[in-house]
């Protein structure tokens, strides 16, 4: 009996899981007490969370395709309310809820990225993220020991996401003074409660995707998460998964807060590796799966395909075509989307499965992105170097401010007196500089600058550094690979082409409502540069062994011989006689004659 429980067949699990999901959904319906006849008070306790899922497909000009998934769970409760212990979790994952209440977290943003976002070929992403792992957290203002909470939080998250986040310590954590303002509701912005850390070396693989998928209400069994198969997702140019938790407005009046959990997954499939060179994309080609149903727990489940550049169908063919067209203002531009609603049965058609097909017919040019950044190390040798960060403003007549955040490890000793900011070969003085020097083995460098980028220009920020020699045990097992330096973060208010919508409570698709907008003429954007790989002077780790061998040999041969010469007595040793002489001596001894 016990052994049979080990053999749970996949089909029965699916059926049982589906039954559980349907039962959970039915629980939600009990908000109308008349239908079920349950007490209204207990119903309200259960049904205060909603779940939405959506996917945006954006064909890119280079022939690649960009798919962005967003799963949003909104929960009307207050973790940090005194005296109430939250114990009933329905759609919101319990592991994250307990983490939030234990460490008094106000906002949590964690992302795992493999690959680098190529802004010049792909445009702007919906949710930007740097290569490796990035974690930034706003703690509640009641926390007394922020560093202690931060340390424990990173350890707990490393267990939840199967990542080595426990390597985040004081040597790579910074406290930005002006960047990374909270994305959620609130008015207290004391930056003492903010911590930011990045691990550029962190690898993202299936073991990070598995716990991420388990946080979704439907798991990977129903809805859009069915498409997430690791063999296809990691065979791509860019893969980024993130979890964003923040407090949002509960309703249009915005008088109380609700918790929002957004799980995002951005992936760019390459034309040549995944697409086999053909400019034809379909859901099956991208994910090796098609969609058959929406997640039963979702209140909305939609797919948006960007058809802005295809008004008459001359650029690409989209099939099956959808009657629903919607427009949204995203990234400063008004884009048109073909919408597929998965909660409606007719979207799936006769075959009861949805496989979107995009076939390219023509070529088109891409609009240059307004902000683009690059970073590289120049110089030669293993002693000195220079970091150059280039910021490109391609807007023809508007200038705008950008906030550059650089966090460099302590083993690159920066010469801050060599810091120069030049635009169009003239010096550009930043209006705000915050620099916190590093302390060896304790704290990294933190440099924050507010720079005004002139229109249609390149601004270059350069700073010279010297490489430090680390202690023997501080080198990684493969030190000749080099040491990674985290990406710079550039936060900017970029002028938008169309007027942005500042009403934050209107119902908008998820991908356009990530960053809150305050004014109509510009929108907020974050750009990450490449991480750097610098070689530090690496010692030869076999030298201690060589030294010991050489010293012992010299001591043994030199001193040993000298000691022998001084302390040994020497005697003349009779050489042994040849055989004939020995035989002759034996015969002579027998005869009694004197020996030879």
């Amino acid at each position, binding site marked *: *009996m*016990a*052994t049979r*429980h*080990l*053999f749970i067949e996949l089909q029965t699990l699916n059926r049982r899981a589906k039954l559980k999901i349907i039962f959970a959904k039915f629980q939600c319906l009990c908000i109308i007490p008349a239908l079920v006849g349950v007490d209204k*008070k*207990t119903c*309200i*306790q259960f049904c205060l969370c909603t779940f939405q899922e959506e996917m945006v497909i954006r064909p890119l000009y280079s022939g690649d395709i960009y798919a962005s998934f967003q799963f949003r769970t909104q929960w009307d409760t207050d973790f940090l309310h005194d005296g*109430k212990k939250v114990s009933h979790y329905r759609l919101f994952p319990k592991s994250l809820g307990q983490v939030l209440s234990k460490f008094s977290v106000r906002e949590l943003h964690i992302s795992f990225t*493999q690959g680098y976002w190529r802004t010049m070929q792909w445009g702007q992403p919906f949710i930007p993220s740097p290569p490796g792992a990035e974690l930034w957290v706003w703690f509640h203002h009641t926390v007394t020991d922020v560093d202690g909470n931060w340390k424990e939080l990173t*350890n*707990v998250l*490393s*267990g939840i996401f*199967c*990542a*080595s986040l*426990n*390597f985040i310590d004081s040597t790579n954590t910074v406290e930005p*003074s*002006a960047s990374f*303002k*909270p*994305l959620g*509701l*609130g*008015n207290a*912005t004391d930056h003492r409660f903010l911590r930011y850390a990045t691990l550029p070396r962190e*690898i993202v*693989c*299936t*073991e990070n995707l*598995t*716990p991420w998928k388990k946080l979704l209400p439907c798991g990977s069994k129903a809805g859009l998460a069915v498409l997430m*198969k690791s*063999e296809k*997702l*990691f*065979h791509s140019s860019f893969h980024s998964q993130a979890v964003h938790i923040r407090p949002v*407005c509960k309703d249009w009046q*915005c*008088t*109380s*807060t609700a918790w929002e959990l957004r799980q995002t997954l951005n992936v760019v499939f390459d034309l040549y590796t995944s697409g086999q060179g053909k400019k034809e994309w379909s859901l099956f080609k991208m994910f090796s799966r098609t969609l058959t149903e929406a997640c039963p727990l979702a209140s909305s489940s939609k797919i948006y395909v960007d058809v802005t550049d295809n008004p008459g169908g001359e650029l690409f063919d989209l099939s099956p075509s959808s009657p629903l067209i919607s427009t949204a203002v995203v990234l400063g531009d008004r884009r048109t989307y073909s919408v597929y609603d998965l909660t409606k049965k007719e979207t799936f058609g006769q075959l009861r499965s949805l496989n979107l097909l995009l076939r390219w017919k023509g070529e088109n040019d891409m609009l240059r992105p307004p902000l683009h950044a690059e970073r590289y190390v120049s110089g030669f040798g293993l002693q000195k170097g220079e970091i150059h960060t280039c910021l490109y403003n391609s807007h023809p007549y508007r200038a705008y*401010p950008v*906030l550059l955040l650089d966090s460099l490890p302590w083993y690159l000793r920066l010469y801050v007196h060599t810091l120069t900011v030049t635009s169009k070969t003239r010096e550009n003085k930043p*209006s*705000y500089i915050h620099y916190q020097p590093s302390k060896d083995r304790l704290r990294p460098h933190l440099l924050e600058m*507010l720079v005004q980028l002139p229109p249609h220009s390149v601004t270059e920020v350069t700073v010279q550094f010297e490489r430090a020699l680390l202690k023997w045990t501080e080198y990684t*097992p*493969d030190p000749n690979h080099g040491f990674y330096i985290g990406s710079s973060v550039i936060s*900017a*208010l970029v002028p938008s082409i169309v007027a942005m919508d500042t009403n*934050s409570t209107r119902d908008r698709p998820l991908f356009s409502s990530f*960053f*809150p907008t*305050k004014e109509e003429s510009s929108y*907020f954007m974050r750009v990450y540069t490449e991480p750097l790989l610098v070689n530090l002077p690496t010692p030869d780790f076999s030298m201690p062994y060589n030294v010991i061998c050489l010293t012992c040999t010299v001591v043994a041969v030199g001193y040993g011989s000298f000691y022998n010469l001084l302390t040994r007595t020497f005697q003349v040793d009779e050489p042994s006689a040849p055989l004939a002489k020995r035989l002759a001596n034996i015969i002579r001894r027998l005869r009694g004659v004197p020996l030879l």
Partner: protein
Amino acid sequence: MAKFLFVTICTVANLFAFLPVIHGNNFETKATQFFSSGHTNNWAVLVCTSRFWFNYRHVANVLSVYRSVKRLGIPDSHIVLMLADDMACNHRNPKPATVFSHKNMELNVYGDDVEVDYRGYEVTVENFLRVLTGRLPPSTPRSKRLLSDDRSNILIYLTGHGGNGFLKFQDSEEISNVELADAFEQMWQKRRYNELLFIIDTCQGASMYERFYSPNIMALASSQVGEDSLSHQPDLAIGVHLMDRYTFYLLEFLEDIHPASQANMNDLFKVCPKSQCVSTPGHRTDLFLRDPGSVLITDFFGSVRKVEITREAINLTNPTELPQDLTSLRNELKSEALFYVDQLPVADIIHQKPKQKDWHPPDGFILGLWSLILLVFFKTYGIKHLKHIF
């Protein structure tokens, strides 16, 4: 498996029921002790200690044992998986997110729901010994701990590059057989295991279990002292050797085991004879109390689920009512509307006051400097000036 045990115990008990009653109880307890293992839960610690792409086969070794152990029932929460390098999503891997064990890419041992607990630079000798002995820092999450008790059967599998008396971790440090034996003795003293099965697949692997001295340990190695463990087959598309011979045949053997299987340890000792493995696998059972022929493979590779059937009825309590004050709180509306923070408030940033630094008492250097200055001053000018200063 439990069913079989129950039936056997029943028949044995019935058999002995015909004997005089005085002997009946003795034989029954002896029989049950003889057949059962006495463990209630299973744990597995699977470690790959090699870094770099050409050591792909060590990661494939560990993942194939992980796959078998998961298939036979041990859940992820009871498996501590340590991989020293990432092969699946390595940029050299022509098929990302896969690790193959058979050439022509037949079997992907990486799977779709793998959970690696220690990865990359975290796989060190110190972390390994801390996991075994349980002496981890308090903030370590549960998935990284070996929470075994005195009724746990633990499977420990190590693979990598080794030599006579040591195993190399990540090309930079080694663990010796003496350290390992001492770690197991610590586990025994703290009663962290009931029985332990130790499998090692490295060159000269038998040297690693020579020094064990704690009871209830059974050890298997892929080669004797002075012999090298060889790899099995390369795959031309991936470009490296995919598995080691011993683990390849071990995987083949384990694929035939299912949770109700009655195969015992003697079958495991026969895995990979010299004709297939080129090296001579060895084993050590002198520290183990039970006879290896009576130890089932699933005692270590599978998982025990104890099911107790009860006929009593339990009354469920009524769900707790929402306290009154909370519903009233929900009804009351906060008067002021909340708003989102401005993401880049340029004016505020430019006029930002410098951050108030917390006051720290002056450190030793400053105190020493000032005391030196004062000392020199009073030495030069005399102590009588003191009253003019203060």
